[in-house]
């Protein structure tokens, strides 16, 4: 190693400052929102809240906790996430396993059918018309089915299956296990890491999604919590044409939004430190193949 020159040490210093700024700019909004969620209405209005709560006031949390619609929507989010992820996992695993079999006749076509949809999609209106005509509106299937396979996840899983040693499967086959048996008893137990990653990918994306629900569900009782939050936000910008859930709460405005933001992102923030590396490795795996 050559000893670092003075200009390089200056660069290191500047780099440290820039990256510190990146961290601060990324984190500050979270800190501020949390501080707001615990602050008094007057202090928020006066723009006094920065890093710490001013005029400590947990009553906004009580108000949100007492709103039955919030809990109902939160429960919907959990339900939709679980069901949609389960459906997505079954379909993705099956198809990825099929696509990973190099000897299969017609495999190229099967891959092509999936990959083409990454570059060209039907678009909003035909999708809306289709889901409406299938009678899926106002059911959870309108959320689970149209997004059941993410081609990116499919390719990640396919790449993983291809990397498994073929000998085990061949041995199992000679022992008389059917293809289904091999998938369930040999391949999946060997693929716990990628299965866990895929479950995380899908559940985070379903937890976060709002537009399908906004588009296909009509009553506020069916909405996931993301749409509940969206209605609060849009009420704040357009001067209050938001849903019924918002009406009784509109007098406390800003705090409610902050509290809902905190409560909606809480599950993600809690698991984030533990699952982050799975996401990173999953993206790498997908990038190699995709």
């Amino acid at each position, binding site marked *: 190693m050559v000893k670092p020159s003075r200009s390089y040490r200056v660069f290191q210093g500047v780099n440290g400052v820039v990256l510190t700024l990146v961290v601060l700019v990324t984190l500050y909004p979270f800190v501020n929102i949390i501080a*707001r969620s615990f602050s008094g209405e007057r202090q928020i209005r006066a723009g006094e809240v920065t890093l710490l709560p001013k005029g400590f006031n947990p009553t906004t949390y009580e108000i949100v906790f007492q709103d039955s619609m919030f809990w109902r929507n939160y429960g919907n989010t959990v339900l939709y996430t679980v069901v949609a992820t389960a459906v997505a996992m079954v379909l993705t695993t099956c*198809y990825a396993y099929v696509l990973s079999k190099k000897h299969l006749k017609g495999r190229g076509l099967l891959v092509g059918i999936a990959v083409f949809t990454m570059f060209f999609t039907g678009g909003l209106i035909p999708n809306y018309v289709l889901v409406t005509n299938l009678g899926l509106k106002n059911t959870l299937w309108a959320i689970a089915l149209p997004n059941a396979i993410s081609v990116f996840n499919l390719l990640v899983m396919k790449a993983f299956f291809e990397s498994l040693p073929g000998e085990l499967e061949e041995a199992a086959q000679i022992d008389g296990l059917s293809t289904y048996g091999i998938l369930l008893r040999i391949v999946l137990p060997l693929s716990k890491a990628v299965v866990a990653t895929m479950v995380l990918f899908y559940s985070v994306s379903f937890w976060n999604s709002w537009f399908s629900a906004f588009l296909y569900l009509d009553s506020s009782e069916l909405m996931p919590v993301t749409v509940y939050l969206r209605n609060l936000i849009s009420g704040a910008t357009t001067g209050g044409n938001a849903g019924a859930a918002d009406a009784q709460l509109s007098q406390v405005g800003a705090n409610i939004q902050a509290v809902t933001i905190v409560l909606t992102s809480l599950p993600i923030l809690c698991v984030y430190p533990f699952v*982050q590396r799975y996401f990173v490795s999953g993206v790498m795996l997908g990038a190699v193949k995709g």
Partner: protein
Amino acid sequence: MSTSTPSAPPGTEDPPPARAAPRRGRRDPARTGWRRALRRDWQLYSLAVLPLLFFLVFRYLPMIGNVIAFRRFEPGGSIFGEEWVGLRYVQMFLNDPTFWQVFRNTLWIGGLTLLFCFPVPIVLALLLNEVRRRSLKRFVQSVSYLPHFLSIVIVAGITMQMLASDGPVNHLLGWFGHDPIRFIQEPEWFRTIYVGSEIWQTAGWGTILYLAALTTIDEDLYEAVRIDGANRWQQIWHVTLPGIRPTMVTLLILNIGTFMAVGFEKVLLLYNPLTYPTADVISTYVYRSGVESNSFSYAAAIGLFEAIIGLVLITSANQLSRRTVGTSLW
């Protein structure tokens, strides 16, 4: 090829299912007909049935469903419309001044996103790559990935709270003696807000692939140019950047492909009638004309137009890059 021998102890093995065909066909893999393939691999094909059904119904049917752009459509009727009307809806949107406004807005927002959101992750990755302390590097990475994991609704909510008249940004402006700005209601601020929140949300996550590419650059290359007397900047210019060029080109092609689609959901969450003059893009106009005003054929025609431009853009970017730098998606 098969090195394993039958190893199951006698008596413990399941009797092979009667119809599970023996895979003797693998011995002559040259030209087996479909019939033989089906007989041999019918169980594998059966696993593909439901996923194929998904693709056909929810991906390919809507593609065909785009014919309603050229057909009269009645809500509740066939998803493929009632009768041909030719290019009526295409002419309609070409003569619609609002269409041209949202078209311009789309180009603006797409262009600004490409200009700012594409290079920022590269710069950030280069900076991270220079950090010596692994723990520090990891910490910065973890923090900067975080916004990627949040719902876009939360990002929009946070953006609005930050920019509210009582929010931190206006608080900061107050220190400089500036009057509060109603950012969310002012059309001239929309593009800045959109691009800013996009960078906040995606810059960190965007570094992952670059950081991965950076680790694959051969240390010997740096050694070689150092012996030739290259300083830090020259090393970055002559070794680092060429090393991540394939990644840059690939991501650039993908970004160009989504150019017209712009962050539809984010625009939908952040805009309001006051900011339509700058914020309304093709996809949001399609949403409002179709779903809110029930002009399905008209909206489908515009949507199809957008999708075709997207396809043309990504294909030509891919061709261009294959010819010039030898990197391409397919």
